[in-house]
């Protein structure tokens, strides 16, 4: 994990009981996780009375350092020993290391879900709806008398947050073909998970 000097300095300040007493440390740590993982978190996350005595610039620096480190650790799936080693290097005492590791462990899953959801992907199918109709006539052709399906795929686009729909018509044979291919895909998926 590559971490900048700024992050290291922030952590060294966090480690110092003179700058951050135990209570302040715990609060800042919680604030860092909250601002990353809580969708409704805003800037007021650092507005706790027990943090008021600390210089706001220092507070912001340490908060940013902690958040950056948490994201890097989450990105690489860091384990407890990696975390401990780095925190020891920053002169954290064993108590604070333990607290950090516990908080990290508690939030690890949410962190991974958050990081996993960032990124580009192909338009993603979320749902399908269908309509069965019986075609009787058009202005060009009478006495058609055949069933037809209209299928709509609901699609989500990760970047543009748009929800385009893909609609197409098909007759029974075509729908059977489509379902057959989808079933092949899902059987293949099942087999792959058993390997």
């Amino acid at each position, binding site marked *: 994990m590559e971490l900048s000097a700024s992050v290291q300095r922030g952590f060294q300040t966090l480690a110092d009981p003179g700058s951050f007493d135990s209570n302040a440390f715990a609060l800042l740590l919680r604030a860092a996780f909250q601002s990353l993982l809580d969708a409704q978190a805003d800037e007021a996350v650092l507005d706790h009375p027990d943090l008021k005595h600390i210089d706001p610039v220092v507070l912001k620096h340490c908060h940013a350092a902690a958040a950056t480190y948490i994201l890097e650790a*989450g*990105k*690489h*799936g860091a384990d407890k020993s990696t975390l401990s080693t780095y925190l020891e290097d920053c002169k954290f005492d064993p108590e604070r290391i333990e607290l950090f590791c516990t908080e990290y462990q508690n939030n690890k899953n949410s962190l*991974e879900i958050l*990081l*996993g959801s*960032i*990124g580009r*992907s*192909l*338009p*993603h*199918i*979320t*749902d*399908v*709806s*269908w309509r*069965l109709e*019986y075609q*009787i006539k*058009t202005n*060009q*052709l*009478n*006495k*058609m*008398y055949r*069933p037809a*399906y*209209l*299928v709509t*795929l609901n*699609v989500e686009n990760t970047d543009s947050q748009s929800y385009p729909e*893909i*609609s*197409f*018509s*098909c007759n*029974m044979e*075509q*729908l*059977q*073909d*489509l*379902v057959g*291919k*989808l*079933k*092949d*895909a*899902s059987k*293949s*998926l099942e087999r*792959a*998970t058993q390997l």
Partner: protein
Amino acid sequence: MLLDLSEEHKEHLAFLPQVDSAVVAEFGRIAVEFLRRGSNPKIYEGAARKLSVSSDTVQHGVEGLTYLLTESSKLMISELDFQDSVFVLGFSEELNKLLLQLYLDNRKEIRTILNELAPDLPSYHSLEWRLDVQLASRSLRQQIKPSVTFKLHLNHNGDQNTKVLQTDPATLLHLVQQLEQALEEMKTNHCRRVVRNIK
């Protein structure tokens, strides 16, 4: 149901008895070919020269025949109705038989062509799929994220359209279940009754 032929139409068709049946059969072939691929005026000129008539006359004859065939195919009229409709034109027995044969031989194909004229939504052509597992991304390493990638081929107004889409295993199972239900619907009593009774 009888065909309703306008005076103008009857006039155009009046050309047909004046040529022999081989020519009428040829006109029939040309008419269907024009339905398949669009008309080609040069053919009229060639035929006009051979028959010593104006190319307009030939054109009207072929167009009249085309309209006769498409209207009959559209309405799917029975043999008897076709014969009765053509009877009013006062053609020979032989010509009437020829026209009937022309109708019956080409009806199915003409209906297929007419079907393509209907308002059209993209229609399904085929589906390709691929199983993928995402192992890492810029924001998260060491992942195992299975997904299925599809290439959906659709036809719209003659053009092929391809959409590349993705889904997760759970949604795939959901899609299969939903669409299987859709197929099952046709076998229900309700649908069978509708199909039986609307004819």
